[in-house]
């Protein structure tokens, strides 16, 4: 009954999505306020029905109704409740439903809080959102319906893929989708602006918060996915340049570029055409990501068994939205009037360079990801493009971006002082150089490591320099400093945090890839093994049982300088329903470093082969993005305060307005 009702709700949602697509767009073209007014209630109703369907599927999972094929294939009655719920989106059908739910949620937000938008812009944007919702609801209902029944109903389900039975699944896909789908709003606004042939600072002020919100979610989603892969897969790696990972990085790179270029539109009324193009590209690449993940055209460690017909359907959706929006762009973009003039050395110029480097990085990632497909189609040769390619292409571009980054915020709008900015960064450069000399000599590493380390420290020191400049450190009294720090706009803190965050992440990456130590050893009970400053004593293997699994747990007493600091218990686990083994790594954090232990299948007599890593500063890889996200949220909260209120110009005299 629940399945049928949910299915019905989804069909109704499709009908509403079609209404949301057709009526407001038609109304905006005819300038008919009544038709345009349909958009908001329909968008909210559409969300309600998609949410109903989603709640229905969740209820089916919680109730372990195995007469529904999707539940049978991905759930098990013995599974803990949390994984019954997260299992809803741990499969193709459910994850597409989550995708549409997030889309509908964003539409509903625009409908509910878009009161101060111009009516036509709002109607057009919601109409475009309706088109996207229509396409994906059609996709779900025709090729990926999660509510199909099974006759006769099996007594027990086939369980969820054990790798997905983890808290990571509860957080990672929803965050990622909030990011991916969030870019649909910037896309919808861009298309709406093209339809109207008008873009101004107000448009940018509207697009930026949505882009920023999507970017915050995507940043956290990618970081979360990386940490999840790191601890769950038991390989000790945090990034594999796998096609599916690339698919999430592409919208992130373009989205980051969009954030910065929208700033120029908002403050200086320039770069409008480019910004519209970026908004289209960011979402197009999100769609491409969905296609790559869902179609199985690329061999990926993430790939799950898929049905080729779905790939064709998504390809059609992709062609329609990317082709359509780019055609509209080619037709209408010349009508957008170019705005303010600026000198090459200026904040605008710096932001353009930022955009060029980010989009060039995105282009190389896209090339590396799609090249194997193209080559196979043309010559039949099968190749793989792996980490070495991306490290050698994206690496230098990002290093260049990060080494230039600290200068950007120190340049004034319109006409900047390059020499002045350079002088103010001398101290940061000195600190970075000192760090390189110190760490490089003590820990060693390649030339690339030294350069990366310099850039990482310089980026962090540069962000701190920006803060110091803004509050005029060393130039005013302590009390004055405090009031200046309080008075800084939150958006300024946002950029400082985000810029420092990316530097920290790079520092973590440099440390992980150069100063990690790894030992692979075969051990008998009683054996000792040392790594870095730790000594691990292997005491033996035991057996442990969970609700739906059994595991062999190795026990290692970790000592540092003779004192017991931790007991590592890595395990080899088998999930009973599928008979599928997984590796459960044991991870202990010391400062910002981690001790990471995994074991192989135990041998007769309690022997085991273990893989032990010491990874110094590794936590920075994920704390950096968290800091970036915090920066994004701070910047968002600033926007909300300012929207509708006259901007305070007085501050601009003290600090360059953000």
């Amino acid at each position, binding site marked *: 009954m629940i399945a049928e009702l949910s299915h019905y709700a989804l069909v109704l949602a499709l009908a509403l999505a079609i209404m949301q697509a057709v009526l407001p767009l038609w109304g905006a073209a005819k300038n008919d306020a009544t038709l345009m007014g349909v958009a908001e209630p329909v968008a909210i109703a559409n969300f309600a029905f998609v949410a109903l369907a989603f709640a229905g599927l969740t209820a089916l999972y919680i109730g372990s109704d195995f007469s529904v094929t999707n539940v049978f294939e991905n759930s098990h009655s013995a599974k803990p409740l949390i994984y019954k719920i997260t299992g809803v989106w741990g499969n193709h059908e459910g994850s597409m439903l989550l995708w549409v739910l997030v889309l509908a949620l964003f539409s509903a937000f625009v409908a509910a809080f878009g009161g101060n938008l111009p009516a036509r812009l709002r109607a057009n944007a919601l109409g475009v959102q309706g088109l996207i919702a229509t396409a994906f609801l059609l996709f779900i209902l025709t090729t990926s319906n999660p509510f199909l029944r099974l006759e006769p109903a099996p007594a027990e389900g086939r369980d969820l893929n054990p790798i997905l039975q983890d808290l990571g699944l509860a957080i990672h896909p929803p965050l990622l989708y909030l990011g991916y789908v969030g870019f649909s709003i910037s896309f919808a606004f861009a298309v709406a602006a093209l339809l109207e042939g008008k873009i101004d600072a107000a448009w940018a002020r509207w697009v930026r918060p949505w882009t920023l919100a999507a970017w915050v979610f995507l940043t956290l989603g990618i970081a979360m996915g990386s940490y999840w892969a790191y601890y769950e897969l038991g390989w000790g790696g945090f990034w594999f340049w796998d096609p599916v990972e690339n698919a999430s990085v592409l919208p992130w790179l373009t989205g980051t570029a969009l954030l910065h270029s929208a700033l120029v539109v908002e403050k200086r009324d320039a770069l409008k055409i480019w910004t519209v193009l970026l908004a289209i590209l960011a979402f197009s690449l999100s769609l491409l990501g969905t296609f790559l993940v869902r179609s199985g*055209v690329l061999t990926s460690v993430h790939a799950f*068994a898929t049905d080729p017909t779905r790939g064709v359907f998504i390809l059609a959706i992709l062609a329609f939205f990317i082709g359509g929006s780019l055609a509209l762009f080619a037709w209408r973009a010349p009508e957008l009037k170019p705005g303010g003039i600026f000198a090459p050395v200026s904040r605008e110029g710096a932001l353009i360079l930022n955009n060029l480097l980010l989009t*060039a990085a995105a282009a190389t990632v896209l090339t590396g990801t799609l090249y194997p497909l193209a080559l196979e189609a043309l010559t039949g040769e099968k190749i793989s493009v792996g980490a070495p390619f991306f490290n050698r292409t994206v690496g230098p571009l990002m290093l260049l971006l990060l080494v230039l980054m600290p200068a950007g915020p120190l340049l004034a709008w319109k006409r900047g002082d390059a020499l002045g900015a350079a002088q103010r960064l001398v101290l940061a450069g000195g600190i970075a150089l000192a760090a390189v000399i110190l760490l490089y000599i003590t820990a060693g590493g390649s030339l690339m490591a030294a350069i990366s380390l310099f850039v990482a420290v310089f980026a962090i020191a540069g962000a701190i320099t920006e803060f110091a400049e803004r509050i005029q450190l060393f130039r005013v009294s302590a009390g004055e400093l405090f009031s200046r720090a309080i008075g800084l706009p939150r958006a300024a803190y946002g950029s400082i945090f985000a810029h420092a965050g990316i530097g920290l992440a790079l520092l973590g990456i440099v440390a992980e890839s150069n100063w990690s130590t790894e030992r692979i050893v075969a051990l008998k009970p009683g054996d000792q093994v040392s790594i870095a400053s730790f000594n691990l004593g292997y005491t033996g293997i035991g057996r442990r049982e969970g609700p739906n699994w059994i595991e062999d747990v190795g026990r290692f007493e970790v000592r540092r300088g003779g004192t017991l600091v931790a007991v590592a218990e890595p395990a080899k686990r088998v999930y009973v329903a599928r008979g599928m083994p997984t590796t459960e790594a044991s991870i202990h954090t010391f400062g910002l470093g981690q001790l990471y232990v995994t074991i192989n299948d135990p041998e007769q007599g309690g022997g085991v082969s273990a893989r032990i890593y010491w990874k110094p500063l590794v936590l920075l890889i994920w704390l950096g993005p968290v800091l970036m996200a915090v920066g994004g949220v701070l910047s968002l909260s600033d926007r909300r305060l300012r929207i509708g209120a006259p901007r305070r110009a007085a501050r601009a005299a003290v600090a360059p307005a953000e």
Partner: protein
Amino acid sequence: MSRRQRRLLLIGLALGVLGLAAALALSALRETIVFFHSPTEIAEKNIQPGTRIRIGGLVKEGTIKRDGLEARFEVTDGGNSLPVVYRGVLPDLFREGQGVVAEGVLDGSGGFRADTVLAKHDENYMPREVVDALKEQGYWQHGVKQ
């Protein structure tokens, strides 16, 4: 600076960055791509030992031998098979009869030294290259399972 000059400068800058990216990508592509070969192709073609390649097929039944950290097994596409040596921790879903993709070099005496064995997240998933290799040898009857 006039709008026209500014535009020329911007175009120059854009071309510069794109040129840099293209140069990086081209040189990296030349040196870092890895070709995929099925065991039959390796038997037929003359591939230099020491060149990094990927191989793939099914892990042949009854061929897995483990010795401490070292694992030996054969990869077959139905027609030919290739002995593989791998030192390290094997992925969780590594089993006899399962599809596998490994990266490494030919050792020059008819074997393959792998330094990476690709893991999968899903037991139903079969790498596309492996499916193609099996199809070429006529050993693929049932479609990719759901």
